[in-house]
């Protein structure tokens, strides 16, 4: 049952063209004389919008899969340590001052891949969820510590400022090159996550009952590593750390589905894309002295009260 899908598709159909028109320079579609309209649309706003959809869909889909896999409504894609791993890669590239435009995303993807490999190596042969999660938390903690070390030993104030700014997450000044990096990896990752649907449904009944229903825990673990790794790794590589999307989006769509983890995967991916597209557009048009509001900051500001509301609802037994 996927009732929210048509609605979300409609929302995307409306939001995408509108988001292209909004920004520091407003483009009137009925006035063909706006200066540089074609360049602004095709080289600045369209890649940015496509990137928002990619990164948001990846984070939303990964968040839904993580919550289903861990059977926990508070789970977030960051828990597996893949986002911190990718961020560590990116920080190292800035720290080393790697000059090529490909360096940062490449380093970030290597970081994500390293976290995935470490996770696969540590995780138990029986595919147990608890050990796997602890391994992810250890990797996240290690990557966080190494990032702090890199920041504290920053070679120049410029590198320090670049690292801190990048860690805040944003989609400003991105190009088709970033889309070419993120889109294929995100799509492949989402395909892996889509393949987990039935197994995640079975996990609703716990690990033992899921195995009795034919779930192969090792296969599921591999699909999760590949799916979350590719979507989150690609997202961090092009946009930095953008928190709370993976946590919030599944909760927003769950009430409109039959609540099976498999049935919220697609709506979460669509809603994640829509949320990031709208949020990025609002960041762009919000009047703020000294540039635009960083997307990562905006979503964290939105996410923290959401998280609190979620905790209060859980206390009342409503989640």
């Amino acid at each position: 049952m996927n009732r929210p899908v048509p609605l979300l598709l409609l929302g995307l159909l409306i939001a995408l063209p509108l988001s292209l028109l909004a920004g520091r320079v407003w483009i009137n579609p009925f006035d063909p004389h706006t200066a540089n309209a074609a360049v602004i649309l095709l080289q600045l706003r369209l890649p940015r919008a496509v990137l928002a959809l990619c990164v948001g869909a990846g984070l939303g889909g990964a968040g839904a899969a993580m919550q289903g896999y861990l059977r926990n409504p508070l789970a977030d894609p960051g828990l597996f340590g893949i986002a911190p791993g990718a961020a560590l890669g990116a920080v190292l590239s800035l720290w080393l001052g790697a000059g090529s435009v490909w360096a940062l995303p490449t380093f970030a993807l290597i970081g994500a891949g390293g976290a995935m490999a470490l996770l696969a190596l540590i995780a138990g042969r029986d595919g147990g969820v608890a050990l796997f999660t602890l391994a992810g938390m250890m990797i996240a903690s290690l990557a966080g510590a190494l990032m702090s070390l890199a920041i504290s030993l920053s070679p120049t104030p410029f590198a320090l400022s670049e690292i801190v700014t990048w860690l805040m997450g944003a989609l400003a000044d991105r190009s088709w090159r970033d889309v070419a990096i993120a889109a294929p990896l995100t799509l492949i990752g989402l395909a892996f996550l889509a393949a987990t649907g039935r197994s995640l449904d079975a996990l609703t009944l716990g690990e033992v009952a899921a195995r009795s229903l034919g779930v192969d825990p090792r296969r599921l673990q591999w699909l999760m590593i590949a799916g979350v790794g590719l979507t989150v790794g690609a997202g961090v590589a092009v946009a930095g750390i953008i928190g709370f999307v993976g946590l919030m989006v599944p909760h927003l769509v769950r009430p409109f589905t039959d609540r099976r983890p498999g049935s919220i995967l697609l709506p979460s991916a669509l809603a994640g894309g829509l949320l990031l597209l709208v949020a990025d557009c609002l960041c762009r048009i919000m009047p703020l002295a000294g540039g635009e509001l960083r997307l990562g900051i905006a979503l964290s500001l939105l996410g923290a009260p959401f998280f609190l509301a979620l905790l209060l609802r859980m206390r009342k037994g409503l989640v």
Partner: protein
Amino acid sequence: MTLAVENVSLAQRLASISASLRGGEVTAICGPNGAGKSTLLACLAGLLVPDSGTVTLGAAPLSSLAPQARARAIGYLPQTPEIAWDVSVETLVSLGRLPWPGASGAEEIEQALAAMDLDALRQRPISRLSGGERARALMARVLACQPQWLLADEPLANLDLAHSARLVAEFRAQAAQGAGVVLVLHDLAQAMNHADRVMVLDGGKLVADGPPGEALSEAVIARVWGVKARWLGEPGAMALALPA
């Protein structure tokens, strides 16, 4: 078709157990706490791999079956079930059809809901069910798969008298159609009343195996449970009146 264990041992839990279970029979596994009942059931379900010995389904080792093929053949109800998301009863029961991708399963789901008297509750979220209603929904989930083997760990524990009788009748009906039913039962009276065969475990060893009257004799009960008790009913007969 038989489901058999041969010399199955599992560290400190099961010691060289051999038994061949037949389809068309209701077998009860009894024993005191920690005897290894649930462990043996999990081995029979293919969910625990014994340290030594083999578990076979028909002629094939259970471990050689693909997980999905095994799931279609053997339905399993764990002792401590959990339900992570607040799904409706109907959605929960439909999870039983997961081993059958591609098949709609609507008819089997309806049959399972009816068998567990859940028609009126089908849209209700799990969080708003009583313990007994939840137990019925979880059992219906196993029935919806229509496996050749039904393995259930304490399936009658939370049920009221009427629904307990109804579930027993369902087990008997399944056995009459050729399915093998294996139940871990704590209550010896239930085993006496409802099983064709009783296996008694003690300290991981199979100490008695046979018709209820023999396997749960006064001497066995005294030796295994350390209690002097005697069955006053008629072995093998149904003590409960079943709904028509």
